[in-house]
């Protein structure tokens, strides 16, 4: 009887291990915005390590590679705001250049496409995801005959501190 109990308990432990093996996957309800979980993991910070530009209308184009002189960090996080008396969560990204806040966008991050929206009702800057791994992202932005390829590496760095201002009492 005891042997049987231990046999069954080992099966129960296996069931629990299977349960937790599925944690932290890039999944969300209906699988939309399934890349955002990866982007916001850890501190949610990604450093731009390389920017390439090339003409996309020719085979084997000449590629110009640039290493950013100033540190560019994209910080992905969920922010909440109140509308009609209820709290709504929103995916957001803030871009910092050289330690200064450049811009904050709402973000739609899917495995194939990432959209940065700057308050537009319809529209936004759309990146095509070329490569997505837990520590590296390569996105393309194409417009007309030009493509910009941006390489990010997960940095888990501190979000730059931006000093606030106050004019009132």
């Amino acid at each position, binding site marked *: 009887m005891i042997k049987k109990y231990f046999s069954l308990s080992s099966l129960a432990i296996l069931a629990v291990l299977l349960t937790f093996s599925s944690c932290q996957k890039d999944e969300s309800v209906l699988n939309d915005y399934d890349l955002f979980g990866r982007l916001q993991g850890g501190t949610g910070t990604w450093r731009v390590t390389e920017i390439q530009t090339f003409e996309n209308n020719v085979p084997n184009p000449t590629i110009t590679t640039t290493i950013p002189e100033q540190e560019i960090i994209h910080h992905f996080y969920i922010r909440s705001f109140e509308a009609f008396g209820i709290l709504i969560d929103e995916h957001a990204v803030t871009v910092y250049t050289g330690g200064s806040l450049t811009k904050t966008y709402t973000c739609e991050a899917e495995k194939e496409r990432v959209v940065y929206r700057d308050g537009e009702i319809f*529209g936004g800057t*759309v990146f095509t995801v070329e490569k997505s791994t837990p520590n590296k992202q390569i996105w393309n932005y194409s417009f007309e005959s030009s493509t910009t390829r941006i390489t990010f590496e997960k940095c888990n760095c501190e979000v730059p501190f931006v000093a606030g201002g106050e004019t009132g009492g």
Partner: protein
Amino acid sequence: MTRNNIFKAFSVSMFLLIQSISFSQVDFYLSPGIGVAYTQCRLDKLQSSYASYQRFLDINFANDPYTADDNWDLTSVVPSYSIQAGVSIDGAMFGVAYLPHFLKQERYVMRESGYGRKFTWRENRHDILFDVGWGSEHLDLYGSFGVNLVNYKMTSALVYPSGTLSVTNEFDFNGVFRHFDAGYSVGGGIRIKPVRFIAIDLRYVFSSDLLPGEKNSVIEDNVALSDLSFARTPGTSQYPQDYTQPLSLENEIIPDFRRSYFQLILHFYFRND
């Protein structure tokens, strides 16, 4: 409900079941498995859409000849996974099976100018089945019923002469079109257990696009394959049934795709008796 949530609910249920029967006189089994499935599906709407894209090129890019991959496959052979658990008592067996299938097809239509389009079709299917039947030490025969949860995704990307892919909102044909659907699943199978920790499962599953009673009812799901990104041009969110017609909310595909499988799965068959 996502794959993770289904999997967690299944595993926790098994944990509770195992603990509750620890000292009773029943044969309990837990069997993860891997194998292969031959599967068939009517993707005629996708095939029609793909053909219409080529007609669109014939009409609008007559001086830029193209080559196109064959139309979407209706049958395929894919890896098959399974996690099953259950009990058998005095010749009867009852089990629960989780069967995920991940299907993917890609098609290119490339013009002589170097521009083209890449279509990628994905179906992530999750069948959760209850197996009921006759069981013995070396053989089980069972019928199955349950539900399927399916995520469909069609990615339509422009291919530039440089080889770069783009799903940006610069072109309305670009997009990531999705749909979630649920339906009932039925089937049956035979499980052979030649040695103590091995089982071979041969199973047939039919996955419908409808839930019981859904047809012509208020819960009937007529949602189309859509790209709901805010970045899109308004009115162009549906994946077009006919590329030669204007993009609109009427020019759409409702993915009422029914799929059937024949699976052969090798199980690691843990049991207490």
